[in-house]
């Protein structure tokens, strides 16, 4: 779906979420802790919510939300993000997108 491709290709960390989804919020908090400001798309507020959900599932997400893209590439859902972080491979991935806090 073009819309999904366009949105996911945005620079940095992109999270597809829903306003009611607390797990998506948790993932958002994690990236913020890592010094990244993710772009959050709350798809339940989008009129094309259903199509976006289907497109995300087709791309390989186990659940439509949260769906995390870094630098245009799909990382996955909560499981994948947590695994990557514990293995130490998430920080290098988002390093280019970390905001300079100083």
């Amino acid at each position, binding site marked *: 779906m073009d819309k999904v491709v366009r949105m996911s290709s945005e620079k940095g960390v992109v999270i597809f979420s829903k306003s009611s989804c*607390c797990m998506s*919020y*948790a993932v958002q*908090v994690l990236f913020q*802790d890592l010094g990244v400001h993710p772009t959050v798309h709350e798809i339940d507020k989008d009129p094309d919510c259903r199509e976006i959900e289907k497109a995300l599932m087709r791309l390989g997400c186990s659940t439509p939300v949260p769906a995390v893209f870094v630098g245009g590439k799909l990382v996955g859902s909560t499981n994948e993000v*947590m695994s990557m*972080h514990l293995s*130490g491979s998430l920080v290098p991935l988002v390093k280019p997108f970390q905001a300079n806090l100083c």
Partner: protein
Amino acid sequence: MNSASTHFVPTSRVGIYEPLHQFGMWGETFKNNIGNGGSMNTPNHILIPNNQKLDNTNLSEDTSHGTPHMFDQEASTSRHPDKIQRRLAQNREAARKSRLRKKAYVQQLETSRLKLIQLEQELDRARQQGFYVGNGIDTSSLGFSETMNPGIAAFEMEYGHWIEEQNKQICELRTVLHGHVTDVELRSQVENAMKHYFELFRMKSAAAKADVFFVMSGMWRTSAERFFLWIGGFRPSDLLKVLLPHFDVMTDQQVLDVCNLRQSCQQAEDALSQGMEKLQHTLAECVARGGLGEGNYIPQVNSAMERLEALVSFVNQADHLRHETLQQMHRILTTRQAARGLLALGEYFQRLRALSSSWATRHREPT
């Protein structure tokens, strides 16, 4: 001649007529006296009430002969002593069988009593080792019994077995680490221990589907373990902090890796905790929506039900974190270090369970 009536003396009344066989002897005398209108003998008086209480089944031969006559007792005694004897023998046999049945019943009771004592001892032993014994038998619990939910009842039983297996594995690890074993043998022990923890996460996931509140409450764990509860279990970063000093000599790289792992764990835990807080807020908002005090709140309850589904995903995610922490430690450490780490972890949990047990029984100790 006297009618051939047979009056049988019921067993219970034999005692009164103890010397019944004597009637046979006396029967002749009575017969002689009857004809002579002789005075009634004492035994006759005793017999009279007995005639009125005769068992109907014994009167089959009497009906054609009219009402029983008191003299007929002696007559039947003298004419059919063997019938009396047979009836006595039957009574003795019945009494013997009754005594045997009673003996068997008492033996059954004794066996059951012994079994009960045995079971109570097992329970005590299990409690001492810090198992949480559910099903409402455990008096130190809050009377919390989830056995109405079959998924939870199954989990509680499985968890009991899991603890048994855990204790066995800890003993094996201890033995193996004190001896000289090959790395191969050690590796299989480590693999088994890891698989055992993964099995627990699988069990918890199934239980969370059955009743997420049960898993979240930690009621299936002992009280001291519950003190450290975070989303249905232990905080992985806390456990890493506890275990770090207990490893064998580690390389600098290993120390760095473990510290990084602990920090990542903490960040992941914080993220999940904040997600949980948001869930609490949205749930509270959802439940309190509309006029509080109106008295009708079915729609609020229904929409809150939908929100609660998210709790299951948090429990699963927390266990996923625990799973990944174990995996990473396995990757960072050597086989021997991992074995030692798993032993330390296992014994840490055992100590917490023992603490729970001691605490629960402290008031019973005489001071």
